[in-house]
């Protein structure tokens, strides 16, 4: 094909190499296309499809009804409640994680590694069981409940409330906040802080003017990593929450399991996906790297 200008051996070798790389990735590309991209396409198609009287979804009579329904009061209430819970979870996680990440990243390397492992273990341990552990603690007979009422902080009964869900989400996703924060704070060049102190900045203003801005990529990455899964959470509300259908994740599941409304469930899934993509975009625009 290439009879235009002398292709050169170098060029040919490069083309062969690039073809080799492509072929190497091909099986995975095909797999992900069939079992990820196509399923995603189906969900998008479903969100524009028609629901028959029997509750089946028919890929015909395309319409935007499922998206119009997102404006309904019930659906909006679910979405806002989920947004609210995700926001509170994110803020609480940040408040808990920031000092911890600061503490870890300012230890000596040996101590630091040990402390990090301490965060990693719950990070990868079974999420379901860790959530269930709170169910045991929050039970009317549970230790948490007894301690709270013993200290006179109300009767301590928060199981099956949104507060319990928030507690469970913070517990579940806190490592997602700690790790990127740690990565950001650990990279800070402390001589900048030293410089600020030399110029008579107080400890607090050195933190506010130097450390905090430099750690911002970590704050943003961690917030997204906590916010996105909290918004679509299903397991935590199912175990610790009260109104089982009141949150996004459960509401979507319900559309497929009980209400049999495929189009609505799909348009809600697309909404969750959009929230996720927006988060990712913000993340990369802030110069975030992959974890």
């Amino acid at each position, binding site marked *: 094909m290439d009879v235009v200008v002398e292709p050169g051996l170098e060029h040919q070798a490069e083309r062969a*190499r*690039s073809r080799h790389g*492509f072929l*190497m*990735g091909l099986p*995975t*590309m095909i*797999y*992900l296309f069939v*079992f*990820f991209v196509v*399923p995603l396409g*189906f*969900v998008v198609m479903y969100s524009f499809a028609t629901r028959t009287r029997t509750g089946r979804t028919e*890929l015909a009579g395309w319409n935007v009804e499922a998206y119009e329904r997102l404006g309904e009061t019930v659906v909006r209430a679910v979405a806002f409640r989920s947004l609210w819970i995700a926001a509170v979870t994110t803020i609480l996680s940040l408040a*808990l*994680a920031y*000092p*911890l990440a*600061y*503490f870890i990243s300012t230890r*000596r390397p040996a101590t630091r590694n040990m402390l990090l*492992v*301490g965060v*990693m*273990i719950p990070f*990868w*341990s*079974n*999420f*379901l*069981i*860790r959530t*269930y*552990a709170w*169910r*045991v*603690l929050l*039970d009317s*007979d*549970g230790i948490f409940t007894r301690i709270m009422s013993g200290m006179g902080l109300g009767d301590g009964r928060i199981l099956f409330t949104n507060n319990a869900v928030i507690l469970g989400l913070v*517990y579940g996703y806190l490592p997602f906040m700690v790790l990127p924060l740690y990565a950001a704070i650990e990279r*800070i060049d*402390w001589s900048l*802080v*030293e410089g600020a102190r030399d110029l008579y900045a107080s*400890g607090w203003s050195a933190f506010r003017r130097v450390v905090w801005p430099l750690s911002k990529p970590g704050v943003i990455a961690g917030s997204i990593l906590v916010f*996105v899964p909290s918004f679509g*959470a*299903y397991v935590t509300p199912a175990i610790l929450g009260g109104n089982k259908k009141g949150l*996004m*994740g459960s509401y*979507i*599941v319900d559309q497929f399991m009980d209400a049999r409304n495929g189009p609505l469930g*799909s348009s809600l*899934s697309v909404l*969750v*996906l959009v929230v*996720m993509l927006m988060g990712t975009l913000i993340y990369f625009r802030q110069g975030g790297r992959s*974890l």
Partner: protein
Amino acid sequence: MGKGVALSTAEPMGAARWLLRGHSALVYAFFYAPIVVLAFYSFNESQLVGRWSGFSLRWYEAFLQNDNIQSSLWVSVKICVASTVISVVLGTLAALSIERFRWWGQKAFDAVLYLPIIIPDVTMAVMMLVFFGETAELFNIIPGVDLTNGLEKLVLSHVAFNISFVSVVVRARLANLDAAMEEAAADLYANRWQAFRRVTLPQIMPGVLGGALLAVTLSLDDVVVSSFVSAVGATPVSVYVFGMLRKGVSPLINAVSVVILAASMTLVMASLALERATSSRKR
């Protein structure tokens, strides 16, 4: 290298210093206390979860005698092994292809490869449910394929999210390696396969194993996707336990939970130890 001096600048002074320490200790307590309490109660003799009445292993015996849990554990093992093997092969190939080569369309592949990591469980679950609902009949035409029993569907969807995690871990390993070694092998007239098997593979092995452990962990961990695609008779243990514990607390679930948690913690620690052992040799 002056790092010690710098770290002393980072250390807040006076009360703030102790606040920071106290806070960190409390957060670690928050991480581990619930797990410890759960483990403690799993040895409780009493039928009532919150009331301690003495040490006993009766709930672990009940766990061993419960056929439903045993068979769901077996289902999980099968899914884990199959999905891990497939996703390790595909994930490693993807990692090599992206990290070691430049080709047209690579950026798009890279982006799609990231999606399964950040996509919320529920969305992934819906995707799989809808997909298999629409295409199961198509797949069943292929001789030897039967998606109705659910096991294949579980493996296929677990692979779909595991590939990405494996490839991230292997890529991290590859990025730290020197491509010069492979080039040297090629200079010494090793063919591609020999260069890969003798040079590249041994070097990325820790990453591959780390990715495999991660895949096993995630596969065991998954509830939402699995409960959407599993069929009667092929329920993985996470889905079975989820069903049990939605009904409420019971000492039996405590025992089952501790067993699962111990298994997943062992996996995590193994993968961390592996990472440690190999990274310390490098630096």
